[in-house]
């Protein structure tokens, strides 16, 4: 089957505007603008059961329908902050098939009658962002973006914005703050981005993931029913699965929802190298709970619903695979370090909880852990979940700890029992460069003294 999203695998030069157009590019936008009212476009996307690929899986058509029709200013913001560990799918679209994103974003913009589109790229994507700007210009010259799009009288420029390298700026409200030039911290919701007061510059805004929008041209061209026919009734369509870690053929795989873990990992990914056994799976990067590689798990279908039933989340479908030699305490420590480093610090449980957890892991890795520390690892993360944090990052941060403690407790006990740490673990602890302890020294001098002097 031909790819819907990763079309660069079928048509290598599709990143070029002419090649994209020669292969049916922008026909979806033309069809939407010329043959459909904005309401019809929303209806088609609603019926296709396209769900957000940024992690939460929220129905895209529903999200668009929340935008008030009468608002004078409305935005579409494309979330290209892709920072989840093990996630590299949006990158391939941006790099290899950018026009499909631009087209999808323009259809979304048409559907809500947006006044502008912003594409927020993570700071590390600066090269992609510059290239993307050129492709946008090509589309603008072809009257597909900008003033009077396709002669419809509707104006909608597309801008690219670079973040400064913060995971939290992938969270939609923090992203909006960052885009506005404010500190990248999440906002209190409600109001949600779609509501007046909640969006970009406080105007109603749709925030969608890159992959989500890249599906839209196909849906408009081929119809909602055709898309819905792919995958399962609840999790419809195709999904890009990112495979990384201990796997023979890491990379992006565009597959219909509903294939099993086993198919993904062993058929498409080529299994675990060096004849090792698979021990654990992170199905959604660092932010979802770890699953032990049991038969039950491997035979489960990859849908939002079934992964949730297993006690994890499909999220952005970033599969990090760990073989039998993986030290799960070390893995949890790495993830904890990541979340501590990326917590925005706005709310207490996440700011303090990630810091505290990291301290405990450092002790464990150094061989100084105690049973009391293991008790803390069971209870601290619980106090970070259950609605007590302002955004989901705090909840994410608790997942690797809770799930490894649940499934691999013996390994933790092992750490405590062997009070003398292994040399490797000690090194790992040292490698975990600590920004926080060096705090005052590391801040720019002006800041250390209280600010501008």
């Amino acid at each position, binding site marked *: 089957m031909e790819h819907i999203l990763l079309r660069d695998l079928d048509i290598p030069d599709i990143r070029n505007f002419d090649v994209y157009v020669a292969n049916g590019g922008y026909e979806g936008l033309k069809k939407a603008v010329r043959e459909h009212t904005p309401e019809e476009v929303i209806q088609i996307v609603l019926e296709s059961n396209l769900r957000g690929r940024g992690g939460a899986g929220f129905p895209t058509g529903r999200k668009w329908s929340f935008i008030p029709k009468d608002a004078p200013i409305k935005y579409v913001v494309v979330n290209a902050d892709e920072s989840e560990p093990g996630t590299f799918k949006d990158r391939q679209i941006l790099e290899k098939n950018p026009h499909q994103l631009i087209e999808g974003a323009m259809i979304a913009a048409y559907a809500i009658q947006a006044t502008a589109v912003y594409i927020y790229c993570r700071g590390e994507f600066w090269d992609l962002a510059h290239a993307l700007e050129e492709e946008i210009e090509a589309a603008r010259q072809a009257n597909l973006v900008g003033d009077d799009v396709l002669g419809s009288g509707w104006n909608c420029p597309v801008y690219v914005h670079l973040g400064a390298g*913060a995971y*939290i700026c992938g969270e939609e409200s923090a992203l909006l703050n960052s885009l506005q030039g404010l*500190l*990248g*911290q999440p906002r*209190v919701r409600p109001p949600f981005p779609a509501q007046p007061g909640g969006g970009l510059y406080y105007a109603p805004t749709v925030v969608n993931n890159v992959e989500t929008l890249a599906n839209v041209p196909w849906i408009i061209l081929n119809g909602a029913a055709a898309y819905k026919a792919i995958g399962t009734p609840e999790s419809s369509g195709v999904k890009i699965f990112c495979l990384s870690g201990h796997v023979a053929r890491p990379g992006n795989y565009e597959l219909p929802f509903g294939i099993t873990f086993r198919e993904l990992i062993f058929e498409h990914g080529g299994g675990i190298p060096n004849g090792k056994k698979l021990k654990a799976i992170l199905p959604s990067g660092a932010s979802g709970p770890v699953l032990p590689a049991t038969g039950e798990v491997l035979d489960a279908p990859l849908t939002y619903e079934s992964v949730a039933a297993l006690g994890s989340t499909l999220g952005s479908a970033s599969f990090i695979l760990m073989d039998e030699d993986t030290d799960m305490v070390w893995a949890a420590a790495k993830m904890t370090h990541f979340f*501590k*480093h*990326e*917590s*925005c*610090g*706005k*709310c*207490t*449980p996440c*700011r*303090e*909880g*990630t*810091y*505290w957890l990291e*301290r*405990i892991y450092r002790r464990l890795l150094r061989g100084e852990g105690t049973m009391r520390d293991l008790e*803390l690892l069971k209870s601290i993360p619980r*106090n970070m979940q*259950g*609605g*007590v*944090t*302002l955004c989901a990052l705090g909840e994410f941060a608790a997942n690797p700890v809770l799930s490894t403690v649940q499934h691999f407790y013996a390994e933790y006990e092992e750490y405590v029992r062997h009070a003398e740490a292994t040399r490797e673990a000690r090194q790992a602890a040292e490698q975990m460069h600590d*920004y*926080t*302890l060096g*705090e*005052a020294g590391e*801040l720019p001098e002006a*800041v*250390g*003294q*209280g*600010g*501008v*002097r």
Partner: protein
Amino acid sequence: MTETVTFYIDGQAYQVAKGTNLVDAAKMHDIDIPVFCYHPKLKPVGMCRMCLVELGSLSVNRETGEVERDEHGEPVFRWFPRLQTACTQVVTDGLAVRTTTEAVVQGRNSILEFLLTSHPLDCPVCDKGGECPLQNLTMGYGPGESRFLIDDKIRLDKHVPLGELIYLDRERCIQCARCTRFCDEIVGDDVLAFHERGRRLQIVTISDPPFDTKFSGNTTDICPVGALTTADFRFGARPWELQEEATICPHCPVGCNLSAGTRLDRDAGGKKIIKRIMPRQNEWVNEIWICDKGRFGHHHTRAEGRLEQPMLKQNGAWVPIDWPAAYDLVAAKLRQYGDSLGVLAGPSLSNEDLWELRKLAGLVASEPKLGVWPAAMTGGDLVAQVGVGSGTMLRAVGPETAILVIASDFEEEAPIWWLQVKQAADRGAAVVVANARPTKLDRYARAVVRYRYGEAVSVLNGFAAQALKDKSLTGKLSESRVAGLSQLRAALKGVKPAFGDAGRMLLSAENLIIFAGGEGLSVAQHRELMQAAANLLILTGRAGRANSGLVAVWPGANMQGAYDLGYSAEATQALLDTPPRMWIIGAANPVAEDARAARAITGAEFVVATSLFMTPTSEAADLVLPRQSFAEREGTFTNGMRRVQRFYTVQGIIGDSLPDWKIFAAIGERLNGPKARISAGAVMKDITAHVPAYAQASYPRLAQVERQFPLVGGDDLYYGGTAYFNLSGLGLAIPPVAEDGSAQLEVRPVTVDAPASTDADLSLIPVRVLYDRDVLFEPSRLMHHRVPPPSVELNQADAERLGIADGDRVAVEGDGYQITATARVDGRAPAGYALLPVRLSSTPAPTTPAACTVRKIGE
């Protein structure tokens, strides 16, 4: 009327106005939902997560619309599965919260545990210890013991200066953003921000100079921990050692209510002194805020050099004498010069002082000339006619109210009013700023009106003419209520309404408040301005209403009181025109401030001055009497909105100093006057008997309090901050005459004097700055870095013509004065004018506009 809705806390039903914040709503019913980041005067941010509750709603049957009930007839609620922050929730009908369930208790407990993990726990040496929300809420809701290993604690800088006045302890900060939000939302000064993220999130100052705002001290009150401390108080005392005394700020016409934290201090020889000044809540006046001048400008109360004994000049040398000798001498001189007596009352004499001074002058002169100092503004009598009506509350005004600020650099002259008007603008009030030059309030104005100095009156006449065209506004006026109406109508006939947009904004709102300053106006011109303002208020029917009326932005704390008790700037002018042979100068420093006054005073035969220090005015006197500062005695000030407010004895007496009223009364006794009263309260009783407007202003009445919202201080400091709960009086707002529907009002046509053309280079315009070298402020040394050096602002074109560049040393000269200053060419001065901030130079300059030349001088 806002709709009232019913909501439920732990099963109990309560009523509150729809849309009230849930934490506030609970608080109004004396139920505590603990908070750190939420503050009732700031927008919620949901950061600290302390306010977690279970949220639900009344279960209503969809078909019948009836509330569902269980078998006991109790209403049934539906609950959200997860905890929610109460501070981000507004109350709607049927909303329910549970605050005592296992989940909530555990949630609060864990938030406190998290907050305490990296907290330094240096309560024993922390300034906030004893009045710390974190301490209190930990006691109330926190874990009993710590599970955190002390070695894991984060270590951060503990003495980070955020500018010269405020220090940050990074370890204590709990990242609640109250301080940054105060600066951003309330003040609008972009000076503080968060830097970095995660556990590295830090408060930094982002302005240059650092923490560049006039309101920085307030952040220390609302900081829920001891992270922010003032340079004035840090490590000065423990809060529980302090005795809080109620007082009123003596620096400006706002009349902020203060609480002075005092103790018997080793460093002051065991005397009771002020250790710190904090706001005292008065929602009618300053709410819970004060400016940095009020907070840090208290050192004059005990500074070195306070006069401790009466001092007599003998053969050019000062010799101490005792009080009876001093009284006798003044009495003798009054007998001798009574028919040629001049009285000057300073801006911060209390009403009781003013009353006794007036009585004293009346004993020797049939029509004593009672002058105010500084004599730059007038019209207090008009404020008495058409001042703001009963029930006026700046805090509460919004789109229904228009506010005109004219001829004033508002933030410099009345900081807290500025703050409140700025916030009123944020809430939708139509703020119009009229001045000859840009001022900071322009940023928040809906319209800005520029005129030429001296022509402020024409702006108001224009608005009045515009009002007359609108019959719905002015049609119902009658000559019987308003004397002079037809003359005014006739005079305004020819006036073309200028600034139509600004006029429409002012006239279309229900209410109109006019704040009138005196910038660029002579006393005579200022009277015309005040009259023009009164005309406008009367014509539009705005006089005598709540949130409407005229307010003078006086250059002092009690100038409205002085007018109410018969003093005036016109009397001062008359005295300077024909100087008397004897002067009594109460708490004023005219010799330092005004060249003409200096000449009139030094030329007199006998000058007696009450003073705190040896000032140029005391030096020029023959007898100097040591007065007590506001901190050492009781009294009342009448603020610019005509609220009479009591201040109390705060600290021990310095030397043999006495309150001015007692001094004047004792002298009066020697002139066969009535026996001196034994207390300030008794003096006020006399005032209530003789001054009808003050009939109700007895001390007991002024001490009355009411329940105010938000609650602050005491057990509620986690909620509103450590500002002090008001137990000592909210004062009494004196209604303007216009409020009495049967009272006759008077309007009078006013004309605009075209500013006299002179052959001098430029016209000198004295302008007021908050941080100056006033006697009451200069001794607060920690503020010296904020007091600018003497400067004069020039227009670019004038500067070029005169060969002067920004930063040059210049001489500013005119009739009888010469000062040196630094030239500022910063785009604020209109062409043809030199702006001279007053009370910055040690050499006297004019206090009202005058001709001048400016020339560059060597280095």
